[in-house]
Structure formats: C-alpha cells, structure tokens
C-alpha cells in the first residue's frame, strides 16, 4: 500500500470518497418519557469531519475508544444516516440515499468487522454467508456463484473445502479471512476495515495484513482502515487521520504523522506505544485524564483539559481549526493553537503542571 504514496503526491488521483463536515449525533434518550419531557441531549460521536479517500489508497483513522472513529467509518459507508454534512462517493451525493437507492452503494462499499464470529451467521456455512451477496445483488447464480466463492476462498488462503465449515469450526485467523471473502465477493471499490486484526496474535496479524495488502494490489481496491493500533496503521496506510472526541485533530501522510507529529495529542499517542528496542521509558509522562464527555464536550479545544501544552485563555476559549504545517506540504494539517505561537512565545511558555491541569480539568467539567 505504501507503493501508492508517491502517486498521491505527484498526480492527484481520482477522489473516490469525499465527506465534508460530516456529523453523527445520537439522541441520549429515545423512550416515550424522554420525548415527552424533552431530554434533547445528544452524543456528538462525530462532529464535523472532512475525509477524502482517493482511488487506490489506504486511509487510516486512529484514536482512543470513544473518539468516534468507528461511527465515522459507519457513517461514510452509509451504515448510519449522517446527521449533517455531505458524502460524495464516485461523484454521486449519497448522504440522503436510503433503501433501494443505496443498493448499488452497498455493493461498491464493503465493511469488514473486528469480530467475524459475531458478523457471520452461526447457522449457515461460511460458504453460504459469502455467496449470499452474489444473489442479493444479482451478480451470479447457480454453478457460477459457487465457483466464484471457491476461487475467492483460495485467493485468501483458505481451501475450497472449508466453504462447508460453520464459523465456530474455524480459527480466528480463518474467520477473518472469511470476513475478507465476504467483503470482496461483490467486487467493491472501497473496503472499510474496523479493527481488522485487533483480536489476532501478532504472527497472524502480520499474515492478514500482508494478505490485505496483496488483495489491494490485485483487485485495485481503496481502503479505509479504522484502528487503535498505531503500529498497524503505520504499516499499511498512505494517509492517516487522528481523531479525538469526534473531531480530526491532525492528518497527513503516514510519514508526516509518525516522523513529524504536530498535535500534542498525536505526540502522546505515539509516546504511549510500547516498543521493542526502545528500552524502558521511565521519563515518559503518561497522558492523564480521560476523553471528555461526548454529550457535553469542553469549550474551546476539546483536548485542552489533558493537554501538556495548554495555553491559558486561548485553548479553553476557541476551538482551533485545521491548518497546514509549514514545510510539510499541504496534506499535513493539525488543529492546535500552539502552532500559531511564535518561536519566542514557545520558548517562554511554561505549560501548567499536572496539578494545575487537574484544577483546570475540574473547572471545565471535562
């Protein structure tokens, strides 16, 4: 997948998916009582996100649990209805589509879930599960249908005889290969992976990631990969977006993010990765606190209650917009007030101590 890095910067390839200002809010109370007595609070799972996936590239979305990364993936692939914003897939506005109009989109955008055991029907053989979309979308039937499924099984490293197995009879790695088969059987253009290897051992992770890489080259696929595992994302993604509390706080090429991270949150994430060969990091200050409430996010920058670079008066007042990073090309952007500070201001800035930040955190309700 990294082979595409060069093409994305030189000749801008076609935009396959373009989402702008996408929002997805979930109502907190949906019962009759709440409707009558007006609990109109909402969980702002995704709150104004722009995201573009070019043809043939892999875009990664990283963030902690609760950052909204899975909701974003499900919204842009139209498993959820967006609350606001536009989603353009292959020059077609799909944000308002529903029912029948979505069917061709369903075929072209496929989703691979983290837990294939709960995503596969336990009472159907895995072959039947994989073949089903072919009938649903009228792609193939009869002999041809089963031939296609058998070919695909062999393509992902399963044997055709395993089509007759039930999900519980397969190992975790094999089930994830079946999950891949089911996504690929409709010959999609875009595949969204939601934590595809989180449940697997490291040697199996590497096998599946290699397979996913090879399939992209063979079938000319675009990927959107959602993961909390930065090492996985770094390995397979061309571009990365870092999410925090429903917003993108930094994005850029995989190289920009890992070698020149700008947002304090991205830096803390990178510092937190346990590494082989780095030795024991005793001087690292772990990121304190917790992600903010999604119903009542803090004012200003949503990261300010936990931020080690917190600038008093500024960060708690105004939410920073994404801005380009000088010297790194237009693709690298971060949303942080720290970037506006001059060299002098940065040198004299004394960020609040942990104790002081605790106080700020308390008072801002984050």
């Amino acid at each position, binding site marked *: *997948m*990294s*082979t595409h890095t060069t093409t994305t910067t030189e000749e801008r390839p076609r935009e396959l998916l373009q989402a702008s200002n996408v929002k997805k809010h979930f109502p907190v109370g949906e019962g009759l009582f709440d409707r009558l007595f007006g609990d109109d609070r909402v969980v702002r799972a995704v709150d104004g996100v722009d995201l573009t996936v070019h043809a043939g590239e892999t875009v990664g979305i990283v963030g*902690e*649990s609760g950052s909204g990364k899975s909701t974003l993936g499900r919204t842009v692939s139209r498993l959820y209805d967006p609350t606001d914003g536009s989603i353009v897939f292959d020059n077609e506005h799909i944000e308002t589509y529903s029912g029948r109009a979505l069917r061709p989109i369903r075929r072209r955008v496929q989703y691979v879930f983290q837990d294939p055991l709960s995503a596969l029907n336990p009472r159907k053989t895995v072959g039947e599960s994989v073949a089903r979309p072919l009938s649903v979308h009228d792609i193939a039937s009869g002999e041809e249908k089963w031939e296609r499924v058998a070919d695909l099984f*062999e*393509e*992902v*490293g*399963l*044997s055709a005889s*395993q089509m007759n197995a039930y999900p519980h009879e397969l*190992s*975790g*790695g*094999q089930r994830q*290969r079946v999950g891949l088969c089911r996504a690929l059987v409709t010959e999609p253009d875009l595949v969204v992976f939601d934590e595809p290897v989180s449940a697997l*051992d*490291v*040697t*199996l*992770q*590497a*096998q599946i*990631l*290699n*397979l996913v*890489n*090879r399939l992209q080259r063979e079938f000319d696929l675009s990927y959107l990969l959602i993961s*909390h*595992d*930065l*090492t*996985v994302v*770094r*390995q*397979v993604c061309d571009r990365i977006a870092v999410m925090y509390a429903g917003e993108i706080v930094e994005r850029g090429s995989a190289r920009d993010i*890992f070698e020149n991270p700008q947002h304090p949150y991205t830096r*803390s*994430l990178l*510092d*937190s*990765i*346990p*590494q*082989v*060969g*780095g*030795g*024991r*990091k*005793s001087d*690292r200050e*772990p*990121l*304190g606190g*917790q992600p903010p409430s999604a119903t009542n996010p803090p004012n200003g920058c949503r990261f300010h209650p936990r931020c080690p670079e917190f600038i008093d008066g500024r960060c708690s007042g105004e939410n920073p917009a994404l801005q380009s990073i000088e010297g790194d090309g237009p693709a690298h952007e971060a949303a942080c007030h720290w970037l506006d500070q001059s060299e002098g201001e940065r040198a004299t800035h004394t960020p609040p101590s942990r104790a002081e930040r*605790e106080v700020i955190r308390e008072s801002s309700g984050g």
Partner: protein
Amino acid sequence: MSLLDIEDLAVTFPVEDGPDVPAVDGVDLQVAAGEIHGLVGESGSGKSVTARSIMRLLDGAEVSADRFDYRGEDLYAKSEAEMRRVRGDEIAMVFQDSLSALNPVMTVGEQIAEVVRHHGAVDESAGLLSELRRKYVTGTSKSAPSWRRAVDLLETVGIPDPEEVATTYPHQLSGGQRQRVMIASALGGDPSLIVADEPTTALDVTVEASILDELRRLCDEFDVAILLITHDLGVVAETCDSVTVMYSGSVMEHGRTDQLFENPAHPYTKGLLRSIPDGTATDGELTTIPGSAPEPAERPAGCPFRDRCPAAFDACTDPLPEHVVDAGHVARCHLYTDGDDPGEVSWETAANVDDETNGTVGDTETADRTTPTEVTDG
C-alpha cells in the same frame, strides 16, 4: 532463591469422550522476589493455564510438576484451607476483563474493604455474621479501618479522588480505572507476588502506558513481584526484568529482558520479534511466521514448533534440549546441541513461500505443510 520455582509443569485436561488435552507440557518458570517477569506467547500457548496453576484455580485438570515451590514450600502439598491463605495473602491475581472480575452490585470500596478484612490486614471482624450484616444491612462504615485502607489503596494506584470513587459501582468507571481498582484489590492482602493475566490488553494505548508505569512503580515501592502474562512483546520490553517465551504448551526461551531482545536465540522468538510491525518494512510486506500453532492434541513429537520452523532438521523430533546461551539465558532448541552457533535463521524463505503460493497461507490447522528446511548463514 526464587520466590516462585516451577520445574517441568504439565497440565492436562481430561476430555470425556476423546483424547486428553495436554495444555501445558514441560514448563519451567522462576520468578525472583521483587521483579517483573513476563510470560509471553500467542493464544493457546498455555500461558494463562500456567498462571492459573499457580493459584490452583484449575478445576478438573491434572497438574503434575517436578517442583512447584513458592518460598520453598510445595503449593500442591497444601490443603485447600492453607491455599486460601496463600491466595490473596501471598499471591494475588489481576484478570484481563475487570468488568466480569468485579462484583457488579457492590461498590468498589466495599469489594476492596472485604479483601482487606479477609486477609487480616486490619483489626476488624471478618466473621460470617458481621460480613452478612455489612452486606445486607449497614455496609462498611466509612470510618472503619478496612474502608480507610481501601481508600488508601485506591490512592496508591493513582486514582484521583479516591473517597468518591470508592462509593461507585464498577460499571460507572472507565476500563482503565477498573483495572486500577483490580490492582488495588490485589494489593489488599499485601501479597508478595501478583499474577497479572493480560491486565492491559483491552485498554487504549495511552491508558495501557500509565497502568504499566503504575505496575513498575508498585513493584519498586512495595517490593512485590509481578508475573505479567501478555502477548505483546512491546509491553515486555518496556516493563519486564526477565521473560519466558512460551509456544504451544512449552517454554521456548527464557532470560533477562535485555538478553532475550538483543540476542534472541530460538527461531520462534526471532520470528515473533520480526512479526511486529515497526514501520521499517517500506515495501509494505511484513515478515511473519507462516502457519499457526498446532492444536494440543495434534502437537508433533519433540519440538512443537518444528512444523513452522524454517531451520527444522532431523533432530527436532527429539525432546527439547536446554541450551545455555548466556548466564541465565536458556534457549530450548536443537540447533545449538552440537555447540556451534547456527547463524541467522532465514525467515525470508518462509515468508516468500507464504506469499507466492497464496493457496496455503498458514493459519489452516489442517493444511498440508511443506515448510522448507533450510538454514542460511549470515
């Protein structure tokens, strides 16, 4: 003398109509007082079974060992009553899934206070009647020594506002906080050894980092030894003093963390280290170990890794040898039996086969195995 000294442990689960399942076979494990010892392996390697055997929590399993000593006393010679004192007082356990390990209908303060009373850490009755009265009528008094101790413990493990948190129920806390509560509860009996089974696996990387720092600090401050079970070599490299690598029920290699990471000797350890994505493989291809671990019942004789090992040869069908690589660093591999260093094991051959044949990419327990058996130097 090691705090915990296990030699040649075997754990077998009898199956009613079928062959017995030998989950663990021939495991040696030594944990010294006050150290963090990592026990790494993939799922199914027997690391959790080994951990549970230390607490004697394996119902219905047949456990045998040449030696199973804790502070020089055989744990398996103890009566159930004596064992109950060992659990908590001497050895405590922290589980991966804190939500199912904590009682959902008791406040976390009550749960820790109960542990404190039961292990006699405070002068307060833990008799059946007084416990029942506490449980159903009064609750633990906020001024009782056991409650004070519970709040102190919560503070010790880095929970802000411990007084408040002690009165909450597990579901009200985040995953990271719950895991801290588990650790506080483990500390309640003032143990000398904490067995932590994947304590950070379900957590975000930022939270994981702070919990690992906490374990490190507790180990240094309270002089408690920790047996850290994990599948993550990064966690081991950053947290552990020494490490034991398990594969398919057997120990493959053990040694000090620096020895093992700088100079891994067993092909499995080498393969495991190479499977970690480190961002250096610019062609997008990760090196991996083809295939997957055998089912316990289908384990080959001799080295259990030999079917996946690129360096396997005739001798690998013999029982595992012990090769001392360095003081305290042992690799159980036949490559070293004639005394020569076999040089670099080539993983490339295996990886390429994996990619190009694409029909038999590992992971298929039933797949036919045509693993190349070449050793290339350099």
